């Protein structure tokens, strides 16, 4: 069985592939930043909010963590227009990614917050810090440092999982690959190239996260 690989038709589309990869990067970074904000708020609400708020956040986290991302995207993209909210594929993809990673990150950050000793908070208050300052400097920053590895691997899973948004034809990397394969019929070659690009992106993201860790949390190692 002879199969001759032809990567030529794939490499002719380098520009399209790069544009797709760029959108994947943008969607991922956007979802990481917004998702982190959502998660910090939810983790705060879940650890120290009133009971109904805690309940609501727990429900959000459990529902998102126990249903597939693909179904969440379908609900956002096909379901929301029925409620009168119409989003473009890119915006729907971003929204679904934020909702998804927000839930996972909430759980991770909550674990970090709960790892902070109560005495630390009391000490912070005794030193005359305001409650918000205590949360920011005494609770949140050390908590984020503790859970940073878990958080960043969740972010990389998010980036890889973003390939699923091609199902609603947001024009990211996988979607571009689908277009190319339907034009050139070199399916195997296209997906090999795109898989390698994803692998490169994953490595680049983990290198970037390591650099951020040195800058943001390096203080703990410089004693």
């Amino acid at each position, binding site marked *: 069985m002879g199969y001759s690989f032809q990567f030529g038709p794939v490499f002719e589309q380098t520009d399209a592939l790069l544009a797709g990869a760029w959108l994947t990067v943008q969607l991922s970074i956007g979802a990481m930043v917004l998702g982190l904000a959502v998660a910090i708020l939810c983790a705060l609400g879940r650890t120290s909010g009133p009971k109904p708020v805690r309940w609501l956040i727990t429900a959000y986290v459990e529902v998102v963590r126990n249903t597939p991302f693909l179904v969440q995207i379908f609900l956002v993209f096909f379901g*929301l227009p029925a409620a009168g909210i119409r989003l473009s594929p890119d915006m729907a993809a971003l929204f679904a990614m934020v909702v998804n990673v927000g839930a996972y990150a909430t759980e991770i950050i909550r674990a970090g917050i709960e790892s902070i000793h109560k005495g630390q908070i009391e000490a912070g208050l005794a030193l005359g810090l305001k409650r918000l300052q205590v949360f920011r400097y005494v609770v949140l920053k050390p908590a984020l440092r503790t859970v940073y590895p878990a958080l960043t691997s969740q972010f990389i899973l998010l980036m890889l999982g973003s*390939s699923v948004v091609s199902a609603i034809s947001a024009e990211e990397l*996988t979607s571009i690959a689908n277009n190319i394969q339907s034009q050139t019929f070199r399916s195997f070659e296209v*997906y090999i190239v795109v898989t390698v690009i994803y*692998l490169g992106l994953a490595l680049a993201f983990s290198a970037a996260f390591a650099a951020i860790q040195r800058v943001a949390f390096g203080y703990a190692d410089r004693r």
Partner: protein
Amino acid sequence: MIRPFGYNEFLFILTAAQWTLALSAIAFLGGAIVGLGIALARTSTIKPLRLASTSYIQLFQGTPLLMQLFLVFFGATVLGFDVNPWAAAALGLTLNASAFLGEIWRGCIQAVPKGQWEAAGALGLRYPGRMMYVILPQAAKIALPPTVGFLVQLIKSTSLAAIIGFTELTRAGQIINNATFKPFLVFSIVAAIYFAMCWPLSLLSTYLERRLSAPAR
């Protein structure tokens, strides 16, 4: 023509859930067998084996599952096999699951105290005996909570088989949605069925984790 959403449509979606369960079961079984091999290779003293299994895990954890499914699906055709989406999905998910289980179980094997390993050696057990009678039974206890947790991830992952055209729960939802144009209702039901499968496992995993860590100290 738009079909109304009735009992039959609901039943169609619900019966498709059995394919989700079947796919999960096959991928878990296959993934467990290959994954055990990966975990043993990862913890072995033979360097090439360690290197190969590490790259295998890196490759599967560093690329999207969807790409892996596409590559299996189209790659099998290249090799001259005529695969249906069912076989491609089962194979792709098995490979993916084996990488994740291999990495989880590596940690569990390494979590067994080193003294156990040395004691087994002192008793004259060779590698197979040490592993089978001393290390793996203890590692299995540690491995149970994260393995159940991974099962949740696996069940959710099977939804990607819908994209390569295998009719499981998510694809059934798409089919019914295309006929009834009730996306919110249809995908809410689909999500609810996934939730009903995954949530008990999530709770079980948390419970097992708590029970495991409680009496230890």
